[in-house]
């Protein structure tokens, strides 16, 4: 009776035969199963680590405090003080955790230089930085914006001032001025 089946199968439709000859099997690779297990294990470890450091406040690696997202071992711990010149984000948000939102703030590095005032205009000062500053090697005219300052002492041309800023120092200007102090008044 199976002979009839053999003949019957011989007569199946040509398109089915073509499909079977051209089909490429998706290989059920065994390594995928192990890779899936390893990925699951890693995820569990990461989530567990995050839970321990964020919720329980345990810190196994103080030097890596900012990496673990721990609230009490943030970027301002002794070992992790920011030194980069550009602003950086600090806090637990970089781990993408689900803990209570922590404060996210920018850390700016302050710079200062001294300069002689050439011109004091509306919202700006034109100054000549004194030698010895870290930004300008030759005496040049630098525009210092004063718009954003909460407190600005009276400044006259010829005064020597100290300028504190957190922004960038270009060849002819600075940004992010936060404080200006008069060092010497013009006599």
């Amino acid at each position, binding site marked *: 009776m199976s002979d009839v089946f*053999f003949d019957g199968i*011989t007569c199946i439709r*040509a398109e089915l035969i*073509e499909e*079977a000859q051209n089909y490429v099997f998706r290989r059920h690779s065994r390594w995928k199963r192990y890779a899936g297990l390893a990925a699951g294990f890693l995820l569990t470890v990461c989530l567990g680590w995050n839970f321990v450091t964020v919720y329980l406040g345990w810190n196994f690696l103080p030097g890596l405090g900012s990496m673990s997202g721990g609230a009490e071992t943030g970027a301002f711990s002794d070992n992790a003080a920011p030194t980069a010149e550009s602003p950086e984000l600090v806090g637990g948000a970089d781990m993408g955790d689900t803990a209570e939102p922590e404060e996210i703030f920018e850390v700016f590095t302050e710079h200062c230089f001294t300069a002689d005032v050439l011109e004091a205009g509306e919202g700006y000062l034109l100054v000549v930085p004194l030698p010895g500053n870290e930004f300008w090697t030759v005496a040049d005219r630098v525009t210092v914006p004063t718009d954003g300052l909460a407190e600005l002492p009276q400044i006259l041309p010829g005064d020597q001032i100290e300028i504190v800023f957190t922004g960038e120092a270009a060849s002819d200007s600075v940004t992010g001025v936060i404080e200006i102090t008069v060092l010497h008044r013009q006599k």
Partner: protein
Amino acid sequence: MEDAQIIELYWQRDEDAIRCTDDKYGAFCHRIAMNILHSYQDSEECVNDTYGRCWDTMPPQRPRSLRAYLGTIIRNFSISRYRSAHAQKRFGGAEVLLSELEECVPAPESVQRTADANALGELISDWLEELETESRVLFIRRYWNGDAVKLLAEEAGVRPNVLTKRLHRLRDGLRRYLEKEGVTV
């Protein structure tokens, strides 16, 4: 060369048609014959007979799929050779395939409906089309091509015993389908 061009050569009675067929489908035909007969010499004769049959039947035939056409012819030649020599116990390849296909025979209490090969082929095709692609391909590669379980398992990236169980479930499914359709053989 495209199938249509080879068929055109047959229609033009150009003997290159047989050479082109052998170049493109010679290995395929040999494998099917070997899977049934397990004898190189007999397979070679079946392949040559197949080319001769193609020469005789085209024209008037113009098959849509030359590969399926060749496969059907060589299966018929191979099983005929197997049956003629079966009494002498010369071949073992088809034995296994036929014994597995015994499981597809529906129960005798089914509604009587004699099925010839073509009608059965249509029913099996309908059933195959209901399957997911991989199962369909596995069934055809095993029972139409006659590929070994070990080879198929290697291609599919599963263990042979897993594939054996899967094929068993497929045969069981075919039997139930044929019973539902009221087929007896």
